[in-house]
């Protein structure tokens, strides 16, 4: 026999008119409760706890307090700089911008990894290509797409852009950006990173 889950027990306890918007227990829950002493006891116990909790009624300050409080907050707010949009234009942009940036960085990482694999022996230095330079062919003779992408990105990226896009080395910047992402954006970033790491085998 499957006992009720914690959530089902909460629903059943709240269904006894103790909570706002009580939802009646569904038929399966009611049928189970009719035969299961253990779940009945859990529901009763939770119901008693709800009644206990309700004994501590909310404290209502004097009506005069609210005007005083609003004035206090207004005064504190006026000491703050105006809540105008952020000065840094790159902040608060949609996740797509960050994902493009991520792909550029991953492309650079991939290129760097491939360059290490195919580096010519004898101390030759690899150079970052410019857009004018032809794409470096891969060993099978095809142009390297990652090389082209990195070359184009690097060619068009000014120092100021790089700083604005957080490619600079300001301490804590990456953490700040990560904190600003929503949960969904963070999940997507994690997924992309994992996919890219698997793909490149880094």
């Amino acid at each position: 026999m499957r006992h009720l889950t914690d959530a089902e027990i909460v629903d059943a306890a709240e269904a006894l008119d103790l909570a706002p918007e009580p939802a009646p227990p569904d038929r399966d829950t009611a049928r189970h409760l009719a035969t299961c002493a253990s779940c009945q006891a859990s529901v009763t116990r939770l119901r008693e706890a709800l009644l206990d909790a309700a004994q501590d009624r909310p404290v209502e300050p004097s009506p005069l307090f609210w005007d005083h409080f609003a004035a206090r907050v207004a005064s504190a707010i006026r000491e703050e700089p105006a809540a105008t949009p952020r000065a840094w234009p790159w902040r608060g942009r949609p996740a797509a911008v960050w994902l493009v940036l991520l792909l550029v960085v991953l492309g650079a990482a991939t290129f760097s990894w491939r360059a290490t694999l195919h580096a010519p022996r004898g101390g030759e230095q690899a150079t970052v290509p410019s857009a004018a330079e032809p794409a470096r062919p891969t060993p099978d003779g095809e142009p390297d797409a990652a090389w082209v992408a990195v070359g184009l990105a690097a060619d068009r990226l000014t120092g100021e852009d790089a700083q604005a896009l957080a490619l600079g080395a300001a301490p804590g910047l990456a953490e700040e950006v990560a904190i600003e992402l929503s949960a969904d954006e963070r999940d997507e970033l994690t997924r992309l990173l994992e996919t890219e790491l698997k793909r490149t085998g880094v």
Partner: protein
Amino acid sequence: MPRPAADREQTGWRLRVTPGADELPRAEADDDTLVQASRAGNREAFDVLVQRHQRLVYQICYRFAGAHEDASDLAQDVFVRAYRGLSGFKGSAAFSTWLYRIAVNVCLNRAAVHTTARVPLDDSQADVGIEAADATLLRAERAAEVRAAVAQLPPRQRATLILRVYHELPHAQVAAILGTSVGTAKGNLFHALANLKKRLEKRS
């Protein structure tokens, strides 16, 4: 309990005229409009938001702090943080949900520093008769026991219980404020109530 944004839209008093930085906000403007005006530099618009939500924010803070002075300081901190963070408010949730999330975070952070909640007794009943005074005292003592037991709950259980039982927020909104699923919010409430019961039994 404040009506959810969806209800307000249905009842038709939603007003979509955004006051500019210099224009006085209207008290009946909806939260989104006032947020936009606040972002545009209209501080009076934020004053209206404060007046609209101060009671619930204060009550949340009071439940965590257990004392009027601390609660009003915390509530002020909540609004100042909300004002600073307005540009980061994306509007994916209702403004009230976002604001209560800030309130819970401020209170939980504060609770991490001050773990003991003070339990004030209401002295406004001093002139009533002795029997009534006894009953009042008993009620106040019981309420104080409950408050102390709630104060000892683990932070997320405590937050869930406060939002659901005392603020009567729907499970979905509690979950949104705490950044969790409805199932987890219900699970937290289950454990909060079970722990509350245990603690109250130990005391009596």
